[in-house]
């Protein structure tokens, strides 16, 4: 596996907070976890109705699901297993696969 399989089980969430209080809550929630923001680049840029794509570690995915559901913040998982998606990005012709 590429990258020693470190991304196995990690997920990418797409979150859309609709109001100011959801934005504040989302910033607070994301502060609890070690996440990697794909977009926007910084939590400071999160505002109502903006699309927030965030890479979440495997161990935190369940808790984040719970948190977002509790706060009724709209979201979906757009990559359910990041390792699998990384492997799929590279086709058979690539030197990475040949190695």
């Amino acid at each position: 596996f590429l990258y020693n399989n470190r991304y196995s089980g990690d997920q990418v969430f797409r979150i859309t907070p609709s109001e100011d209080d959801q934005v504040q809550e989302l910033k607070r929630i994301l502060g609890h976890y070690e996440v990697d923001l794909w977009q926007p680049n910084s939590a400071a840029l999160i505002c109502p109705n903006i699309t927030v794509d965030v890479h979440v570690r495997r161990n935190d995915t369940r808790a984040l699901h719970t948190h977002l559901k509790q706060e009724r913040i709209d979201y979906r998982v757009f990559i359910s297993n990041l390792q699998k998606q990384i492997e799929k990005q590279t086709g058979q012709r690539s030197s990475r696969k040949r190695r």
Partner: protein
Amino acid sequence: SESQYDYEVYHSLEEIQSWMFEMNRTHSDLVNMFSVGKSYEGRALYVLQIGKRSRHQKKAVWIDCGVHAREWIGPAFCQWFVKEAINSYQYDSVTRRLLNQLNFYIMPVFNVDGYQFSWTTDRFWRKTRSKNHKFHCRGVDANRNWKVKWCEEGASSHPCDDTYCGPFPESEPEVKAVAKFLRKHKKRVKAYISIHAYAQMLLYPYSYKYASIPNFSCVESAAQSAVTALYSAYGVRYRYGPASTTLYVSSGSSIDWAYRNGIPYAFAFELRDTGYFGFLLPESLISPTCTETMRAVKAIASGLLKKC
């Protein structure tokens, strides 16, 4: 060899650099390779000058890819551009005119250290790989490190943040090297294009403030032509406009610096997609993404040959 090089796969830094050497060797009439400096970790910063040699001073277009390490479609596009430009020179009159009348400076991998790190260790690394003496975190956002409203809104002063602006402007040797080159050639460079991903947008200044640039109508017209040309390939829609309103406010960006430095047309492309694959755009989508972007870049370059 050059004929066997696969433009529809992602390549390691070593492969890209070998390919650059090969292009330089096999197409000396149109290609000239040089280095603008060294990265933090000591790697050469290679650039390809593409264009028919001329006794006259030609206008130039600068295109850099891979400012952010994890945006792999960027370097893939830069390689595609070179391949297409060279291969179509003989039979495509538009390409021939562009390469006869302009020089293109193509930097396939701006952030070489970051790209190598993304390839081998952390797929989603974004920044450079410079060390910080006070913190354990490494790297600076190379698109927040330029000397224009440096480290103000939209950038972070914390070394562990992904939008860290750096200890001072042009602290990153990669940024300093490219800035030095562009300053030296500012009279000839008429367009600056930086390739990023992902959002499907074409952005122009300002990033750091909500205001219109003085030559707004010319730049906006060029952007409109570009996205129309892009759309003509596969019907993919790109939004376009000032970066501050179309994407978000950020300070210290390369397009703002290029514009402030006297380059009248400064663009940042955010390539495919909008959030199905994100940074993990499959290799099967390299060809359509690059084909449509090629049309957009050619439209911008063609616009330089007309008065506005």
